[in-house]
């Protein structure tokens, strides 16, 4: 579990402020190739903002200022000219499911089409593969042209995951993906994640401490924009993590 991996994402002294309020106070960490990396922490600990830094959708937030360095595959993303390519490299699943107001098929085909893919046959194959990976194919294969927005919440969340997989990302960020769906569906998606870990790096932001414990290789405990603890799961979830705070949070004594 602790064999040296190639670094996929490197974050060095990252600071983020909205206006005059700093929410991330200089954090550094690495995420290895093919790792499931969990980020836990209470609300307002800047978990979602951190993900937005990584795929640079923070560019769309007025008044946000980032300093420090984030490297993906060794390349500084702030110097990336092709930010769209960066975002395709990083699949992002938001907390609340978002079915785009398009058909189920078009929801999944949206990203490849935006990247210029026109071949109908290749698109068909891709849509089937992504929906299958997201454990949704069997439920929707007969109604691919009905609206994605009309699916149930759990189905829409799997549709969102299928869409995030549709641009063949190398990193998949899941931002509290299970808050809108039932435990059974959550388990199905977790199984999917376990299969995907062979091929892609997964960043799992979660409020469910047990989910991080079940799935992750390493877990980072963020608290008010600072890293309290970062280590392999057998340390973070042990009786003796580095920080007493981690022990208390993980075991539900506070937070």
């Amino acid at each position, binding site marked *: 579990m602790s064999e040296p991996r190639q670094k996929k994402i490197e974050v060095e002294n990252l600071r983020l402020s909205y206006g005059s309020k700093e929410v991330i106070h200089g954090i550094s960490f690495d995420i290895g190739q093919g790792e499931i990396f969990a980020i836990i922490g209470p609300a307002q600990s800047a978990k979602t903002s951190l993900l937005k830094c990584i795929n640079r959708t923070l560019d769309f937030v007025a008044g946000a200022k980032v300093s420090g360095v984030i490297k993906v595959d060794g390349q500084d993303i702030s110097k990336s000219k092709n930010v769209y390519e960066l975002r395709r490299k990083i699949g992002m699943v938001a907390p609340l499911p*978002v079915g785009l107001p398009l058909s189920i098929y078009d929801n999944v085909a*949206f990203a490849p089409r935006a990247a210029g893919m026109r071949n109908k046959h290749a698109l068909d194959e891709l849509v089937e593969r992504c929906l299958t990976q997201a454990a949704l194919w069997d439920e929707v294969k007969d109604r691919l042209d009905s609206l994605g927005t009309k699916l149930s919440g759990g189905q829409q969340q799997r549709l969102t995951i299928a869409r995030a997989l*549709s641009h063949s990302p190398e990193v998949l960020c899941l931002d509290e993906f299970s808050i809108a769906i039932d435990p059974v569906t959550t388990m199905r998606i977790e199984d999917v994640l376990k299969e995907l870990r062979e091929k892609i790096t997964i960043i799992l932001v979660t409020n469910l401490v047990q989910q991080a414990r079940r799935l992750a290789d390493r877990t980072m405990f963020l608290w008010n924009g600072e890293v309290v603890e970062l280590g392999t799961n057998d340390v973070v979830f042990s009786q003796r993590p580095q920080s007493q705070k981690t022990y208390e949070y993980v075991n539900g004594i506070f937070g």
Partner: protein
Amino acid sequence: MASTVFAETAFTRKKRLNERIAQVVFGLMAVALVTPLLFIIGYLFKQALPLLSFDFLTLNPTDGMRHGGIWSALLGTIWLVTASLCISAPIGVLAAVYLNEYAEENWFTRIINLAVVNLAGVPSIVHALFGLGAFVLFAGIGRSILAASLTLAIMTLPVIIASTKESLAAVPRSFREACWNVGATRWQTIRRIVLPNSISGILTGVILQVSRTAGETAPIMFTGAVFFKKIPEGDVFAYGLKDQCMALSMHLYTVTTQVTNAPEALPYAIAVVLLGTVLMVNALSIGLRVYLRSRKKW
């Protein structure tokens, strides 16, 4: 026991009564809103009846406005409205897309937004003077349909921008974020998601400006509308952009104030045609809205 749980108390009785009163009062207000409109339409129709005929629409006025129809005025209004919307709709919609989708919040965009709001509140006679100065005299276009349409366009622009922005803002931000997350550009997001889902509101906003444009007298009085003009009957391209024209609103004004011995029904008939045109356009916009709403996707 269940009966005591659901039994009516003095408090619930009062609540129920209040609910009833509120419903009736609000309902009455809604009815009160419609009554004047029905009265206006009914009264106009009754007064105009002796003159209304197909010929009234298709013949030029003759005999110093006292006989004939209103063809040149009707066609003039159609030309003015069409030309001004052809100018203001594209500019207004594109500017609104920029302001809502691209522009960042800074002092510059705040000034633009402030200008749009204030421009919407400028009285039409002020627009008229601006049009006279800027288009007719300074730009040297002269009094013409073009100058009048430009003036009308300036007048409708801020309203089109405001209504378009509102329609765009009604599309949830989460849709945009989902698109950006998968590597779509802003334009791809606008083109594939934002515009298809706001088009009904945008079109309605634009079409509603037809009635406003058709009804305005002041902005066209100095910039292109004339007291009387004879044009070939039955030819819809009788006017050119450089021509001056008659217009229904102006015609109504001149007939009531300048022409003596005109038939009593004449102003009413003109008003009916103006109102009829406007109501037809509004009906079209409602129809379009219903159609596009039915295809709305969330």
